[in-house]
């Protein structure tokens, strides 16, 4: 059943020739009217394009169906378990909420072995190989299921005495640790939650806190866990280590670099410190209460690498005799040549600007001026913005 009423091809109709219209004439006239359309046949690439779009649509539908399924599961789990299970990180990881890989914002993925309390935020592809996964925002509203299974209450600020300390500086990178001791039986869950502040309130833009990975170039120990749950008796404690790697100053930030005395760690703090270059790093107990901070310096922002919590003594801190290079030259961590002890402020302004693919992410920050990991602030994701010029 084709369109078989052929006729004069492509002829336009005068109204006078169609006034005595009968069905046969109408059929032939219709054929003639549109005979010129599509006369060249179908576009050669048309079918491939149709197949491509059909498959893309099918994929989208599959994703939508999966998302709906996960959402249903979340509703069911939430109604059954109440607030004992924090489904939000799982949801955001599976469905992909909270991240847009094409816009430069971090993409949320659930971290393997996580207790469900903390999710990692993978940097966009542009940052691949430059920085490790940042510790992203989490929610503090729900009790982690891992802690619930410990059978003891979560450690609060009243239960813990914690202090952050800088131990040594190796190649311009400050290494330190946080020691915490419990005064009562309680449980604490990793990954640790850190807060970095400076007096100028720019830490949220200039500091990024990342999970330590073996490939990040820092000399932190390879702690086997990420999200460990430790049950502490009174007098017992836990430790975590961190590395403070000041970022290279971009050309635009030369003035600030000069003022801040290069990328200088705290133990060799320059004389002319500024509100922007003086940072304090503290551990957040239960994700909310900061402990005694460690003072650190960075003229143009910094990258913090942090390990999971562990039993004291399980891992040795870095020692100054080792000399691997922290981070690649394109990363934000300074190369050994940027060590403040070997370089003057005038010569410490590299010509390569620090990468800043996620700089726009800070637009939604809480404005607290602090870069925080853990459940304390949802806006902490914006702290993962790559160090930008604060000059």
């Amino acid at each position, binding site marked *: 059943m084709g*369109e078989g*009423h052929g006729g004069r091809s*492509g002829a336009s109709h005068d*109204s006078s020739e169609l006034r005595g219209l009968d069905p046969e004439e109408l059929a032939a006239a*219709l054929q003639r*009217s549109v*005979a010129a359309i599509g006369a*060249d*046949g179908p576009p050669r690439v*048309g079918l491939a394009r149709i197949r491509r779009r059909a498959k893309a649509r099918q994929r989208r539908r599959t994703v939508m169906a999966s998302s709906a399924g996960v959402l249903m599961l979340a509703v069911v789990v939430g109604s059954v378990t109440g607030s004992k299970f924090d489904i939000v990180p799982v949801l955001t990881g599976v469905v992909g909420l909270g991240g847009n890989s094409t816009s430069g914002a971090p993409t949320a993925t659930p971290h393997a072995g996580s207790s469900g309390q903390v999710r990692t935020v993978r940097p966009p592809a542009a940052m691949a190989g430059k920085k490790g996964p940042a510790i992203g925002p989490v929610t503090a509203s729900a009790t982690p299921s891992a802690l619930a299974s410990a059978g003891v209450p979560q450690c609060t600020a009243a239960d813990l005495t914690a202090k952050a300390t800088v131990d040594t500086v190796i190649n311009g990178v400050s290494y330190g640790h946080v020691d915490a001791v419990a005064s009562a039986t309680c449980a604490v869950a990793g990954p640790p939650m850190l807060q970095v502040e400076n007096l100028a309130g720019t830490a949220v833009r200039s500091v990024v806190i990342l999970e330590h990975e073996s490939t990040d170039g820092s000399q932190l120990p390879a702690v086997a866990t990420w999200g460990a749950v430790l049950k502490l008796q009174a007098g017992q404690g836990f430790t975590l280590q961190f590395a403070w790697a000041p970022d290279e100053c971009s050309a635009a930030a030369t003035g600030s670099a000069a003022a801040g005395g290069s990328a200088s760690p705290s133990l060799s703090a320059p004389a002319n410190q500024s509100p922007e270059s003086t940072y304090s790093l503290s551990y957040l107990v239960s994700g909310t209460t900061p402990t005694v901070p460690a003072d650190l310096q960075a003229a143009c922002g910094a990258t913090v690498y942090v390990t999971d919590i562990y039993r004291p003594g399980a891992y040795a801190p870095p020692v100054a005799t080792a000399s691997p290079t922290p981070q690649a030259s394109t990363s934000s961590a300074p190369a050994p040549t940027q060590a403040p002890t070997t370089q003057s402020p005038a010569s410490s302004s590299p010509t390569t600007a620090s990468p800043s693919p996620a700089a726009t992410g800070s637009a939604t920050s809480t404005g607290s001026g602090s870069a925080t990991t853990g459940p304390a602030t949802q806006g902490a994701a914006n702290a993962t913005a790559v160090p930008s010029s604060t000059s």
Partner: protein
Amino acid sequence: MATDVDVTTDLLTETYQRHYSSLLRLAALLLDDVASCEDVVQEAFIRVHAARARVREADKLLAYLRQTVVNLSRSTLRRRLLGLKLLPKPMPDAASAEEGAYAALEKDALIQALRGLQRRQREVLVLRYFSDMTEAQVAAALGLSIGSVKAYGSRGIDALRVRLEGQ
């Protein structure tokens, strides 16, 4: 040995090559904005591609495509009334290639008269006389009774004749 999917894929390819032009013409007769015709036909093929596992006979595939073109054309007209477009952008290469043919269509007295008909009348006339479908097939495609198809067809021809005489 060819799988069902292979057979269906070949059927789709064959249908595309044989009937793309006639479906494009069908859309051109139903739409008052010819620029959307390629979009409508392409969308129909995308949908039939998604449904290819269910439609494995050539006749049914063509009927499905025609029905989809009619429905999409109707939706396009409805959305245009609201100032919206059906699809984000037209296929640039196809639109430019057909430009001359569409310009001629705009001047065709029959086409202008056809566009002045009621939507149902136009759909019935186009499917019945351009696509050479039986009254039962038109009824199935449009979701009408055969009696309604006859009535729309008869009144449509009368209205068309009146409009042509008035031009």
